[in-house]
């Protein structure tokens, strides 16, 4: 399969379109189980949400590029933005569920969800933008299903 490319404005109302296009691309490969496509929808949503949020704080007129490459055992999705970048190592983790201040944290779940649901997650970020590479295998590679 060739590469599927989708370029969207950095706006939240395009999130659903991004999910649908990536899910439809993965569904071309019949070995992809439905729950894996569900995982893919979530991780793409998280990466694209982060890109939209980054542009909101930087330059909302820029566009977000989503590239999908599918083979018979996996799909690789790359989400690229041109916002100001961030250091994924310095993102604070949410407090423990029993912590008194847990309800003060409405954010911070996106990166952990990507790392949990995708089989491979790689984030490269600089002042010129962020590239998030996500790989989901037809059967999961790193966890019991």
């Amino acid at each position, binding site marked *: 399969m060739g590469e599927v490319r989708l370029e969207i404005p950095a706006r939240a109302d395009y999130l659903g379109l991004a999910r649908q296009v990536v899910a439809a691309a993965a569904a071309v490969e019949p070995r992809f189980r*439905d*729950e894996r496509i569900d995982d893919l929808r979530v991780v793409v949503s998280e990466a694209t949400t982060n890109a939209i949020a980054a542009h909101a704080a930087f330059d909302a007129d820029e566009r977000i590029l989503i590239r999908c490459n599918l083979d018979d055992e996996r799909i690789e999705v790359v989400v690229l933005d041109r916002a100001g970048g961030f250091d994924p190592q310095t993102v604070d983790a949410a407090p423990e*569920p029993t912590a008194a201040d847990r*309800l003060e944290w409405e954010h911070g779940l*996106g990166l952990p969800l990507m790392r949990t649901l995708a089989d491979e997650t790689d984030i490269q970020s600089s002042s010129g933008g962020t590239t998030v590479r996500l790989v989901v295998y037809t059967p999961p590679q790193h966890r019991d299903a």
Partner: protein
Amino acid sequence: MRRRKKRRSPVVSGTVDAVVFDLQVSERAGWTVLAVVGELDLANAPKVRQSVIHVLGTAAPGGDGQVPRRLVIDLTGVDFLDSSGLGVLIGAHRRVRAAGGELRLVANDQRIRDLFRETDLDRVFTVCPTVDDAVHGPAGDAPLAGGLDG
């Protein structure tokens, strides 16, 4: 984060469909039920946040405005949830508690329930399988009393 066990089959369309989002507020057994339909993501989370704020600003059913608000957010009609949606639910929980009220969630879709487990939020929320269970369940705000395992 914990790992999942098994999940329900999803619906994945090969076409780009129009996305519907809707919020319905009703009263039931002394609880306000906010039913969410559609995809709960960054695009729609603000609508839920505003609705919760509105509900908390109005009188409780059967009360004089002094009764702590008891709120159920029904996610039965939610076909997609991500961290933006989870975040707005956390904010709702905080607001309801600050108002002296109680929040319960309803979710019966395995995908949705898995997300609560994977983010450890099953230890934060009371999640019930049906609205009936939510409004007639035992009093208290203990997370997941008979919830995700029910």
